């Protein structure tokens, strides 16, 4: 299977190049036959890469340690699930999987557009072929997963997948993130096609709207699952550390979020045309930058892959895309003029514009902070970094401004809304949230930012409830029960109400984030029978446990947690040692409640003495609940229309 894997990977590379050539030639010579052969070449690339990936998985499953990749990332006693996920456990394999995902999206987008007479398709196909060609260039010549170890090296057993990655979250986080990243290639390709052809109407947008939301959904899910993984696996008690690799996924998420808002303005009002093209090209470049940051070791980061020459390739690739798109912008500048302009600062258009500015400011702040060491080293020769205090200080106020805007968003009408009309609609929710803010600030010790978060959350809920309540009322007057009125309302405009649900999810996540102001932690050593207390929580060490599992040894202990004398649960954290890797791995134990998490890390166990770190993390669960609602809301918004009307 090694030969098959290599051969299919090489053929795919050649075919991607051929596809690019055929599309270019077909467009130039106006030869539809060449264009359709070129598109078939892309389909073929997809099938070849599928075989190539299967070949690698096959070799992983049968423990072929002649392959350097498999010897580094798998071992005989790695559980089968993680043998499979080792496909994306290291650089070479993950880039091969990346290429497969890319080819499958390209092929699917072309397949779905095959029946439509869409002038953009040949150009989009050329872009797909170009991007695939670039990634396959890396797979074949720079980081080949089918590379054999030198013949004189015999590896009886592989090193195994890093235990940190042997976690269900880490098994699904990379593919979700990849789907999220790569999905943006589809709107990008069609946007570039629009620039090449000069067909700058809404065709490219309408061809890719669902792709965009779909990719955004996966990017969101990928980021959140990465957070959850960090939270339970890394053992420092947090879910977000403003690490460069985390930031690398957040930046395109922010620009993509701006984009999914501003396309609505173009579709409804024919405005923001240049802006949308800029945003999608930027988002695509940032997804590539994200891969680049992760893979190249550009910024010394906790999870950056080792320094390698593929960094320059990435830079060249991004350079080419930037130059080409800028050139076509200049060529098309006249055609890109919007037919309409903002009519009033109090309008839905303006609120979306403001939303975009804020999201881009956040993206810029995160990018700036992430690349600061690189810039300062280039300019001054000394690396200066900024850590979480910088990112929090900058982003919390901007984030709260965004929350405020989101709260009022449903009240803005298209074109303009009168100041009086706005005040009339906003008065009661605003008053309610102001009262909450004042009560929290005067009568409780809730810190300002948290109080503001709660007040703005109330505002968002109030405004959305009133909007939905009004809509439901209209249908109830028609004689529907309130449930069918609600279903009808949502069914009639799933995009709007799906978005409301996403907003509610976002609010819950904000509430979850705000819980961090009450985080408490304590480290200490306890003997059996002794207790540690944090706040009203008392944690007693009941018994030490030492035993072995298949590929690791375990030190563990049982701890009972009481609150005000009442037992609320048992915590069993583990400290694992993997002899083959000569590596430790802590398995934290968490009691999760809506109000707070109680999180215990076992640092060490010597005889009857356990060294532990205990953290009280309020409201964390709301982050996961909120992200779940975001996923449901997005799904409602993109659910195909026909299925729904069949139900009604």
């Amino acid at each position, binding site marked *: 299977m090694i030969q098959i894997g290599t051969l299919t990977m090489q053929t795919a590379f050649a075919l991607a190049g051929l596809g690019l050539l055929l599309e270019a030639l077909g467009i130039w010579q106006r030869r539809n036959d060449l264009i359709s052969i070129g598109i078939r070449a892309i389909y073929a690339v997809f099938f070849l890469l599928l075989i190539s990936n299967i070949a690698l998985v096959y070799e992983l499953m049968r423990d072929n340690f002649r392959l350097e990749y498999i010897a580094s990332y798998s071992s005989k006693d790695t559980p089968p699930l993680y043998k499979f996920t080792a496909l994306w456990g290291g*650089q070479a394999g993950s880039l091969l999987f990346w290429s497969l995902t890319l080819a499958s999206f390209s092929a699917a987008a072309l397949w779905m557009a095959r029946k439509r007479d869409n002038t953009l398709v040949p150009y989009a196909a050329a872009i797909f072929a170009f991007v695939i060609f670039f990634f396959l260039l890396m797979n074949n010549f720079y980081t080949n997963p089918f590379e054999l170890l030198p013949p004189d090296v015999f590896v009886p057993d592989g090193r195994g997948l890093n235990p940190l990655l042997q976690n269900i979250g880490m098994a699904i986080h990379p593919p979700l993130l990849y789907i999220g990243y790569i999905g943006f290639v589809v709107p990008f390709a069609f946007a570039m096609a629009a620039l090449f052809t000069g067909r700058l109407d809404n065709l490219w947008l309408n061809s890719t709207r669902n792709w965009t939301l779909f990719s955004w959904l996966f990017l969101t899910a990928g980021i959140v699952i990465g957070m959850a993984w960090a939270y339970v696996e890394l053992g420092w008690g947090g879910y977000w550390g403003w690490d460069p690799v985390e930031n690398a996924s957040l930046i395109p998420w922010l620009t993509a979020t701006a984009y999914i808002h501003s396309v609505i303005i173009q579709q409804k009002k024919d405005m923001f045309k240049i802006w949308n093209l800029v945003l999608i090209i930027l988002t695509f470049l940032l997804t590539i930058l994200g891969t680049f940051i992760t893979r190249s070791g550009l910024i*010394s980061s*906790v999870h950056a*892959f080792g320094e390698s020459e593929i960094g320059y390739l990435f830079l060249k690739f991004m350079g080419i895309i930037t130059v080409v798109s800028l050139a076509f912008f200049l060529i098309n500048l006249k055609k890109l003029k919007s037919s309409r302009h*903002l009519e009033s600062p109090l309008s839905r258009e303006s609120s979306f514009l403001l939303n975009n500015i804020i999201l881009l400011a956040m993206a810029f702040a995160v990018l700036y902070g992430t690349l600061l*060491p690189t810039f300062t080293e280039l300019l001054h020769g000394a690396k200066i970094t*900024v850590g979480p205090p910088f990112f929090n200080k900058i982003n919390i106020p901007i984030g709260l401004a965004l929350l405020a805007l989101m709260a009022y968003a449903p009240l803005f009408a298209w074109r303009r809304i009168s100041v009086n009309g706005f005040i009339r609609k906003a008065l009661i929710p605003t008053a309610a949230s102001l009262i909450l803010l004042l009560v929290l600030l005067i009568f409780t010790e809730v810190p300002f930012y948290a109080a503001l978060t709660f007040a703005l959350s109330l505002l968002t809920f109030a405004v959305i409830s009133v909007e939905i309540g009004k809509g439901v009322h209209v249908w109830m007057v028609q004689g529907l029960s309130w449930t069918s009125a609600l279903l009808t309302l949502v069914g009639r405009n799933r995009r709007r109400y799906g978005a409301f649900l996403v907003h509610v999810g976002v609010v819950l996540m904000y509430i979850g984030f705000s819980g961090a102001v009450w985080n*408490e932690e304590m480290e200490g050593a306890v003997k059996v029978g002794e207790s540690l207390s944090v706040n009203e929580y008392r944690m007693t060490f009941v018994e030490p446990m030492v035993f072995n599992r298949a590929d690791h040894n375990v030190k563990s202990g049982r701890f009972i947690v009481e609150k005000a004398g009442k037992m609320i649960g048992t915590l069993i954290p583990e400290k694992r040692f993997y002899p083959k890797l000569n590596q430790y791995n802590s398995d934290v134990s968490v009691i999760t409640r809506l109000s707070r998490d109680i999180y215990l890390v076992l640092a060490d166990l*010597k005889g009857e003495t356990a060294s532990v770190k205990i953290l009280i993390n309020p409201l964390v669960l709301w982050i996961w609940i909120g992200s779940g609602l975001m996923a449901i809301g997005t799904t409602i918004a993109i659910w195909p229309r026909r299925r729904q009307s069949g139900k009604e």
Partner: protein
Amino acid sequence: MNQKVKVAAGIIVIVMALGYWVFQGVAGNEIYYLTVSELPTRKADLTDQRVKIGGVVQTGSIHFLNPLNVEFLLAQGEASVPVKYQGTTPDMFKDESELIVEGTFDGEMIHADLLIAKCASKYETEHVHSDSTARKKEA
């Protein structure tokens, strides 16, 4: 036209305010990021500053005063600097592991409050792994 100018002016003001907000945020939060061998040459201006230093844990230098208190030497080639750290150490903290240490430099020693471990062996330079621990509460 008037409306257009107003809108443009509004956008420019907002963008400039946000830009200012981002750039000023760096002040007071900078952390110098150096290697162990660069440290002695800049001793004067870095004393009592917050620094981030990358190096390798010197073999045999790890000394646990107790499980939550450790001292070790962070080395790079010939150069090394003593580090004192209180808290749970990352899982990958061991002899020869690549480490990024963050803390205050008192001119002699680094009082670290954050250890970020990378992998030790050459095989693993391409792994995705990370490990960080003991971020201070404000982090």
